């Protein structure tokens, strides 16, 4: 079989505007882990091999390279590693379905405040929070990865729209700061 070349949706685009940087992030494999009814214990055994456990609502755990993100009732995304043989849950490859955008810098929270109907300030959204919500009208999973850093997962088909919306918000904030960067 010929060697196929994987291409990301935005070809690794990066842009910095003032203090905020927007960049496409390469996160590796994404696998949906959806528990079968009563399958929690079996799945926990398989995840333990990776040093992970099913995360509680609105959280993610693990470090870069092997993270597990809550995405719904009895459902999580395993990111960064090939999934282990897992019983008690349905595994679905989602790698090509999502684009991950990293937003970092001191004004990142102000940028998202214009797009997301949630309080993303550190006090109510500490590092390790994973929220399913909307980025304007796009469904998104928003991860708080650092004091001034977010990762935003959107459907791959929405990648350029998401980039455009976030970039527009960054542009407005940069203009408001009084200086055109």
């Amino acid at each position, binding site marked *: 079989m010929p060697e196929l070349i994987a291409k990301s949706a935005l070809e690794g685009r990066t842009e910095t505007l003032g203090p905020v940087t927007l960049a496409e992030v390469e996160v590796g494999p994404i696998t949906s882990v959806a528990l079968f009814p009563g399958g929690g214990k079996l799945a926990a055994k398989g995840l333990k091999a990776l040093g992970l456990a099913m995360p509680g*609502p*609105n959280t993610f755990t693990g470090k870069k390279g092997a993270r597990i993100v809550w995405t*719904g*009732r009895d459902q999580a995304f395993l990111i960064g590693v090939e999934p282990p043989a897992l019983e008690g849950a349905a595994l679905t490859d989602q790698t090509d379905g999502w684009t991950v955008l990293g937003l970092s810098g001191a004004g990142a929270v102000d940028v998202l405040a214009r797009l997301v*109907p*949630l309080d993303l300030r550190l006090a109510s959204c500490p590092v390790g929070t994973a*929220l*399913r*919500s*909307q980025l304007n009208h796009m*469904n998104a999973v928003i991860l708080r990865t650092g004091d001034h850093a977010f990762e935003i997962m959107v459907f791959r088909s929405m990648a350029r729209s998401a980039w455009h919306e976030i970039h527009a918000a960054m542009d407005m904030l940069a203009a408001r700061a009084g200086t055109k960067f």
Partner: protein
Amino acid sequence: MRLTCPLCGERDRREFYYYGAEDYLRRPGEGAPLADWDDYLHLRDNPAGVTKDLWYHEAGCAQWLLVTRNTVTHEISGVELVAGRKE
């Protein structure tokens, strides 16, 4: 209007989709008389006061929610998951 999703927490109205009265949770069984189906499909109360209806958290955890609210005061007194609900 804000709903407190049992999983996601307090969220804005725009994340939810309204389905209808909670009557949809009581589907008539097989062989039920036509009158029961008529009731299930068409007959709804229109209370001035407490009512229960179904909402879908489409931009969040994708769960169906049973919301208890007051049509007069707009107070929302309860939100529970339809999944795992005990009759």
